[in-house]
């Protein structure tokens, strides 16, 4: 294990131990939060009992759907916008201020439009993720050196071959970054909207457990969301590191 990894592990372990100590000493009361070891125990009980598997599957399916839609739409839109400067100039102010807009504020409108089904959650996940993908795709395409475009022409590649053999591989690290952002935003959008506009899903169950003081359900579900998002992000970050290291960029 590298020195850096040891430090990272030490920081996480310290936080857990601190929480454990604060719970044990009574600074954090049991109604607010059980000690970490109890959360872990409840987590394994929940998993082994197969409780909430349906809710977990539903939430993850919606996260993946929102992520996939935002990613495909974002990459395609970014690629098209890159070719049309005027359209990009028109949309640039929107992209620059987009994340200042609280998308969740529109949830009453989405409920009126789509009801209490999965539609509004998917839409919020999609809306949160898509602009990050568009902006990151544009960033990658902007950085493609003109000498590589000339090299494509010298090698007599047609536009499709240029896109597949030069533009896409060059932009791969940016597209991975876009995937990381899209996944994180899709998680936030879907799980967050389940809290306020759903009758099922992990977010809804956490909210329901919270209103019923059911810490044995709420904290293990929060832990599960934490683990899932960290695991997905770690996989994408690993690929990103491999790509960048190969290119001498990290």
């Amino acid at each position, binding site marked *: 294990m590298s020195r850096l990894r040891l430090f990272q592990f030490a920081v996480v372990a310290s936080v857990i131990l601190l929480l454990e100590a604060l719970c044990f000493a009574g600074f954090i009361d049991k109604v607010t939060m059980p000690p970490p070891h109890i959360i872990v125990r409840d987590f394994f009980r929940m998993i082994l009992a197969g409780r909430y598997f349906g809710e977990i599957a539903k939430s993850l399916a919606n996260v993946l759907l929102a992520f996939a839609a935002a990613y495909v739409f974002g990459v395609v839109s970014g690629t098209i916008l890159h070719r049309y400067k005027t359209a990009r100039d028109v949309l640039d102010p929107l992209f620059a201020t987009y994340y200042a807009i609280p998308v969740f504020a529109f949830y009453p409108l989405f409920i009126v439009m789509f009801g209490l089904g999965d539609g509004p959650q998917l839409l919020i996940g999609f809306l949160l993720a898509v602009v990050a993908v568009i902006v990151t795709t544009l960033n990658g395409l902007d950085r493609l050196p003109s*000498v590589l475009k000339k090299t494509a022409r010298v*090698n007599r590649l047609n536009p499709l071959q240029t896109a597949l*053999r030069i533009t896409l591989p060059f932009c791969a690290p940016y597209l991975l970054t876009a995937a990381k952002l899209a996944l994180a935003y899709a998680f936030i959008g879907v799980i967050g909207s389940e809290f306020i506009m759903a009758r099922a899903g992990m977010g809804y169950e956490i909210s329901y457990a919270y209103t019923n003081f059911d810490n044995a359900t709420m904290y293990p579900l929060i832990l599960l969301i934490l683990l899932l998002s960290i695991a997905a992000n770690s996989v994408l970050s690993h690929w990103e590191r491999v790509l960048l290291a190969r290119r001498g960029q990290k």
Partner: protein
Amino acid sequence: MVAAQVTLRGVTKVFPSGAVGGGVHALGPIDIEIRRGEFFAVVGPSGCGKSTLLELIAGLTAPTQGDIEFEGHAIKENVPDGIGVVFQEDACFSWLNVSENIEFGLRQKNIGAAEKARRAAAVIDMMGLRDFAETYPAQLSGGMRQRVCIARTIVAEPRLILLDEPFGALDQQTRLLMGDEMLRLWRETGATVFLITHALDEAAMLADRIVVMSARPGKAVDLVETGWPRERDSRIVEHEKFGAITSRLWKTLREESLKTMGRMGSGP
């Protein structure tokens, strides 16, 4: 008399500037004939349109006026088969290793996989890259990366190799060695080489003929025949004629460079 491989007749290039009726007259009119198998160099002051000239011959841009022919066929904004280009900037594909970068030059060739591998291996050996075949460009020096780009160009066996200041980013020692390398490749491949450079000694050492271009819009103001034997290397700089050639190049170029700087020289 050796036949002309590339012919430029009355070629001009004007870039639109955006202003109504305006434009930047970058080049010409210029007339040049490049003979098959020769090492031809172009020197000129900064901004005189040297790289534009190369892009016109490569078919990367179209002339505003005039005709350009490669082996008797007009070049019209498409890179003809048989032309390879090495740019000054690093054009290695960072996601491919050295071997894959070089094989990329054969992608559009209608030859079998075994033949591609054989030709790539031969060029890797010729360029002294055998030990780096699996290495990625990020792990190589600037000189080595440029060597990979040259290898990727020559593996396609072009009949005309266009070099746009390929050694511009390298230190003097590496430039001399790369010059030797280029002369060796020129002899071994039998291709015509067209070199754009701002280094007079490089042009005088490498080329059979050198065109000196005027300040913008670039026109051919002098043509120098070096008369070097085909078998030569960087030691040619010790030849008594070398100083006379570089002096002649500098005399013309100094006047043109001063025009570019917006003042005529009057000193010694």
